[in-house]
């Protein structure tokens, strides 16, 4: 059993908002609409919702149940949460992936947070006024190419802000940030979505109405449903959007007592994320971008499915068409929204790392937060300096590791821990009736689903591993291997003795 950890949630709504904040991220507003455009428009929603029900909801139940089970035994980080499910040491080391993913993703994710903060500032100061679209794009490219010292300073500020909020603990830090950030995010999202869909051709320089963008996004291309790539992308989006397979849901749920509900909390947070993604996320960037640029240009700009091009290089220019005051306000709301979405997610990734040091080594909360901040700063430097390193961290820590971790956790929960015990964990203290069908979906369907996604990704992984690499890519991979080895070493050490610092 770990050292006594006195953290607690302040209120149930605070927990649900923090969990929703964990899930709601940049992907809800940038990646989802871009993926929908590239994968069959309105028809994308069918594989997307099927993946949500057969993979997303079951994994939410599983991660909440695992977290609460181990939390009541004194463990709040995935190595020892996995260890609490089965005593074989393999599972403890499999759980190291949760810490690895949290730090690995934050190493580049906090840098994107810095972009949003910078862009909110530049919007507020009117720096985009008078620029052409190409000049805004050049401004962004110069920024990420470190043409100035601003990106590094703002990134360090973002990491420091994350560290400071984490050091204030669950109730005073993470929960407080979610209680402020989530309502503001929803407010900004609703205002911008309203603006997007009410955009009319001819006003403020728009050449199309916002509804044309909505029509383009939601017009179904049913032939795409039979394309396996579309299903893979839908599954990937569900992973990404619900923050599954990262260890953060386990950690947040581990502070819930065994007699309290997890099932209803999981559903509330999960569906809240879907509302933000599908209802709000689909009504902002695509309608506004189509309104000014037309359908063909938007299709071209969403290639790759990330939406970053439109979000950072185009929208600031489009906002300037609305006049100085509305442009500044819209810029603050859009990039403020992205910042809140980002920071509530990065805080969720920092919490398990901090909890690991607190539980297993008896560290004080502040020291645990500093450890996380220092690790993110150290590992984030290559991503800040090189786009190749950035992509490498995103691919291994932010994509492949999530699938591996989720596959391992569903096997551990449904087959090693056992589905009978697992079902009792999910339904204990539940404030809703969990449909019995999920018992069988968790045991049979979700593992097969994940196995298919995993096996399907192997050819690409092999191709990535066998092609020649640059120094930056090799450095990023070396750092990730060192991170995993270092964390495994800490887990081994924690198993041997308790170190009090």
């Amino acid at each position, binding site marked *: 059993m770990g050292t006594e950890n*006195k953290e*607690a*949630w*302040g*209120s*149930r*709504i*605070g*927990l*649900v908002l923090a969990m929703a904040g964990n899930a709601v991220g940049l992907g809800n507003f940038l990646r989802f609409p871009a993926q929908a455009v590239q994968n069959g*428009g*309105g*028809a994308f*929603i069918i594989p997307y*919702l099927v993946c949500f029900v057969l993979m997303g909801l079951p994994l939410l139940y599983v991660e909440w149940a695992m977290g609460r089970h181990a939390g009541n035994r004194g463990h709040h980080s995935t190595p020892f949460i996995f260890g609490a499910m089965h005593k074989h040491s393999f599972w403890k080391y499999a759980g190291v992936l949760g810490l690895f993913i949290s730090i690995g993703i934050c190493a580049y994710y906090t840098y994107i947070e810095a972009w949003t903060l910078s862009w909110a500032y530049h919007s507020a100061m009117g720096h985009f006024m008078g620029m052409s679209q190409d000049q805004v794009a050049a401004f962004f490219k110069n920024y990420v190419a470190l043409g100035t010292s601003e990106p590094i300073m703002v990134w360090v500020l973002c990491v420091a802000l994350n560290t400071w909020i984490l050091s204030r603990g669950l*109730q005073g830090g993470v929960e407080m940030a979610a209680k402020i950030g989530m309502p503001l995010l929803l407010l900004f999202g609703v205002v911008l979505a309203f603006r997007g869909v009410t955009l009319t051709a001819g006003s403020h320089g728009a050449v199309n109405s916002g*509804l044309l963008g*909505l*029509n383009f*996004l*939601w*017009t*179904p291309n049913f032939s795409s449903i039979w394309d396996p790539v579309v299903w893979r992308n839908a599954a990937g989006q569900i992973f990404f959007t619900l923050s599954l397979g990262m260890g953060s849901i386990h950690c947040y749920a581990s*502070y*819930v*007592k065994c*007699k*309290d*509900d997890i099932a*209803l*909390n999981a*559903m*509330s947070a999960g*569906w*809240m994320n*879907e*509302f933000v993604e*599908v*209802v709000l996320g*689909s009504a902002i960037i695509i309608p506004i971008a189509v309104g000014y640029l037309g359908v063909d240009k938007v299709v071209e700009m969403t290639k790759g499915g990330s939406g970053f091009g439109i979000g950072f290089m185009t929208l600031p220019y489009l906002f300037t068409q609305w006049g100085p005051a509305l442009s500044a306000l819209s810029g603050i709301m859009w990039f403020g929204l992205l910042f809140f979405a980002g920071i509530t997610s990065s805080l969720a990734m920092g919490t398990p790392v901090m909890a690991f040091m607190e539980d297993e080594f008896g560290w004080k909360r502040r020291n645990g937060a500093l450890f996380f901040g220092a690790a993110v700063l150290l590992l984030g430097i290559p991503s800040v300096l090189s786009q190749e390193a950035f992509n490498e961290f995103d691919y291994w820590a932010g994509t492949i590791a999530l699938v591996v971790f989720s596959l391992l956790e569903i096997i551990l929960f449904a087959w090693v821990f056992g589905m009978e015990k697992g079902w009792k964990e999910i339904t204990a*203290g539940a*404030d*809703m009736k969990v449909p019995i069908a999920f018992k069988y979906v968790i045991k049979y369907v979700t593992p097969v689903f994940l196995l298919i996604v995993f096996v399907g990704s192997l050819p690409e992984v092999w191709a990535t591993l066998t092609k020649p690499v640059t120094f930056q890519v090799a450095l990023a991979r070396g750092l990730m291997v060192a991170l995993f080895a270092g964390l495994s070493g800490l887990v081994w050490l924690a198993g041997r003795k308790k170190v009090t610092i």
Partner: protein
Amino acid sequence: MSTSALTIMLITEVTITAFTLYYFWKVVTTPPRAEPDSYAANDDEPR
């Protein structure tokens, strides 16, 4: 908007909004458990 686009959008968004509001309403209206529970805000003594 075309009929097919409008239909898919409305069905999807109404369904998701309904589930979101329903579950959040249940969270808000479900009475808290007897102490000690998981939440510190309603504790008699600070933790």
